[in-house]
C-alpha cells in the first residue's frame, strides 16, 4: 500500500472521528454547520447531483444529542430531556 493511499485513509478516519467529537460536544453548532452546508448544496438552481448531496447532508430536525456524554444511559439522554428552568440554586455565604 502506497504512503499516499495510507495518508488518504488516515485522513478520512481522523476526519470522521473529529466530526464525531465535534457533534458530541457541540451538537447545536454542528447541527447549524451541517444545515448551512446542506443549504449551499440544495439552493435553487443547483444541479440535481448537488441537491442530492444536500439532501444527504441535511441534518435531522432535532438535535439528537448524546446526552451528557457519560454513556451511563440512566437518564434517557439528558441533552434531549431538559428539566424545567427553575431559579438557580445558590448558597448564601456568611458575611
Amino acid at each position, binding site marked *: 500500500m502506497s504512503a499516499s493511499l495510507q495518508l488518504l485513509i*488516515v485522513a478520512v478516519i481522523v476526519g470522521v472521528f473529529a466530526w464525531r467529537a465535534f457533534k458530541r460536544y457541540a451538537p447545536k453548532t454542528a447541527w447549524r454547520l451541517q444545515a448551512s452546508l446542506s443549504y449551499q448544496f440544495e439552493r435553487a438552481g443547483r444541479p440535481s447531483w448537488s441537491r442530492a448531496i444536500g439532501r444527504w447532508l441535511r441534518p435531522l430536525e432535532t438535535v439528537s444529542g448524546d446526552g451528557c*456524554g457519560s454513556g451511563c444511559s440512566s437518564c434517557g439522554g439528558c441533552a434531549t430531556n*431538559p428539566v424545567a428552568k427553575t431559579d438557580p440554586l445558590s448558597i448564601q455565604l456568611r458575611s
Partner: protein
Amino acid sequence: MTAMRVALVGNPNCGKTALFNQLTGSRQKVANYAGVTVERKEGRITAPSGRVFTVLDLPGAYSFDAASPDEMITRDVCQGNHPGEPALDQIVCVADATNLRLHLRFVLEVRRLGRPMVLALNMMDAARKRGIAIDIEQLSQRLGIPVVETIAVQRGGAEALVRQLDGAIPHVAAVEADPAADLHAQVRQLLADTVVMPQRTAAIDEAIDRWALHPVWGLAMLAVVMFLIFQAVFSWAAPVQDGITWLFEMLGQNLGAVMPDGLLKGLLVDGIIAGLGGVIVFLPQILILFLFILVLEESGYLPRAAFLLDRTMFSVGLTGRSFIPLLSSYACAIPGIMATRSIQDPRDRLTTILVAPLTTCSARLPVYTLLIGAFIPRQSIAGVFNLQGMVLFALYVLGIVSVLAVAWVMKHLRRDKSEHALLMELPSYRVPNARDVAIGLVERAMIFLRRVGGIILTLTVLLWFLLNFPGAPVDATMPAIDYSFAGRIGHALQTIFAPIGFNWQICIALVPGLAAREVAVSSLATVYAISAGGDVATQQLGTIIGGQWSLATALSLLAWYVFAPQCLSTLAVIRRETNSWRNVAIAAGYLFALAYLASFLTYQITSWLT
C-alpha cells in the same frame, strides 16, 4: 388510533419501575430502596385486544404536597398540570402489599382526584409469605376502584393489570376533598376491615436489623463489607485481566506483522489497539465492583447504610437523603447529581451536588488500578489481605473523607441553615434476584464498552493524530513526538505541573482525560506506544510506567484523580441541574485547587521520604 395514556404512581420503592419493565419490556434501573426514579419514563404496550397504551413511570411520591423536584413531576402529571404532557386516561396506583399502612394513604389522595384509576397491589408473593391476607373484593368496594394483584419481579406477574387496563375504563366518582379528613384514620379503618396482618414487620428483618442498625456493630459491618469488596476487585479480576492483556498483545503483534510499515499501521497498532486495550483490561474489575453494588442494592441493605451514616452526614452539613445520590455517584457522578432531585431542601441539594464529583466514580477505577498495579507490590498482609486491594480501599475512603470535609467547610461558610431530619423508609430485606443482577452486570458491561467504542475510541484516534503531526523536521535533534502538536502542548503544560511531579506524557493525557477519566489511561498507552515504537509498543502500560515513573509521581497522579474534576460531562450536568454557571465555576475551581494542593503535598512529601 391514539394510544391511551396510563401513569404508574405510588410511594417510593413499591415496585413501579419493576412493573413498568414488566409491562413494556424495558430495562430501567430498579433497586430495593426509595428514590431510584427521579424522571418520568415512557414506554408502550399492546394489549391482547390490540389496544395500544403509553405507560408513564413517574417518580415515587408520599403525597401530593410535593416537597422535592421529582415529587412535583408526579403531582403535576397526575393533576394534568405538567407543561407539554397530555392529560392521563387512567392512573395505575401501585402499592406495596406488605406495607399498606403507609401506601394506602397516597392511594386515597390519588382517589380524591376523581380520575379513572386502578390499584395494583404489588409484591403479593412477599405478602402471602408473611401471612398477610387481603380481601381484594372488599377493598375494591370500599375504595370504589378496581384492585388487581401484581408481582412485578415475576414473569407474567402483571397479566391481571393488563387485563384490567384492556377492559372498560372504570368510572370513579369524584370524592369531596375535605382537608380536615384524616387520611391516616381512614387507612386504619380500611386495614381493619379488609386486611389480616399477623405482624407489621418481617421477623427476619428485625433479626438482621438488630445487628445491621446497631450504632457500633452496624458501622463495623459496613466497613467490613466495603473492605471485602475492594479486596475482591483485585483478587478475583487478575486471571481475566491477564487473558485480555494477552489477547490485545497478540492482536497488536499479529496485525503489526502483516501490515506494511506506515501511518495506517501506526494508527491501528500504536493508536487504537494500544489505547483501547489499555482500557478494556479494566472491565473485569468494574464488573466485580458492580456485582457487589447490585447485590447490595437488591438486598435492601443500602438504606440501612444511609441510616447508619445519617448522624455523621448531618454533623458535616449533609442529610441522610444525600446518601443515595452520593452512592449513585460511585457508578457515575451524573446520575448521582440527578438523583439529588429527591432532596427537598434546595440548599442541601446544592451542597450534595457540589460534593458529588468527589465520590469515586467507576471511571476512576482504570486510573487507580493501573497505578496501583504498577507501583504497589502484589503481596498479602497477614496471609489474608491483598495489599493492592487495601490501597484501593484507602483511596475510596479518601474520597468519602473528602466529601465529608468539603461538606463540613461548606456548612461553616453557609449563612442559610437547614434542619431537615432524615425520614427514610427501610425496605424489607430480599434475596437478590440472580437474573436482575445478571441483567444489571450486562448493562454495566455494555455501558463501559459503549464508552470504549464511543468517546474513548474517538479521542484515542484524535490524540494519535496530534501525536504524529506535524512530523519531525529534517534536522531534528529530539524524538519526533516532541515536535508534534500534542508533544508541544505536553511540554507547555509541564511548566504548570512540574511542581506536582507530572511529566509531559501525563500532561498530554490530562487534556483528553477531561472528556472522560478513563481516556487518560488510553492516552497514556498511546503516548508511550508511539514514543517507544517497535516491540516495546505492545508491552503492558503498567510495566512501562512502573519502569519510568517515580513512586512520588504515581502517588501524586493518584491524589490528582481523587479530587480533579476530570469530566466535562459532570460539570455540564451541574450547570443543568442548578441552572447556574456560577456553581460550575465554584465546583471546577475548588476541585482543581484541591487536586493541585493534594498532588503537590503528596509529591513533595513522597520525594522527601524516598
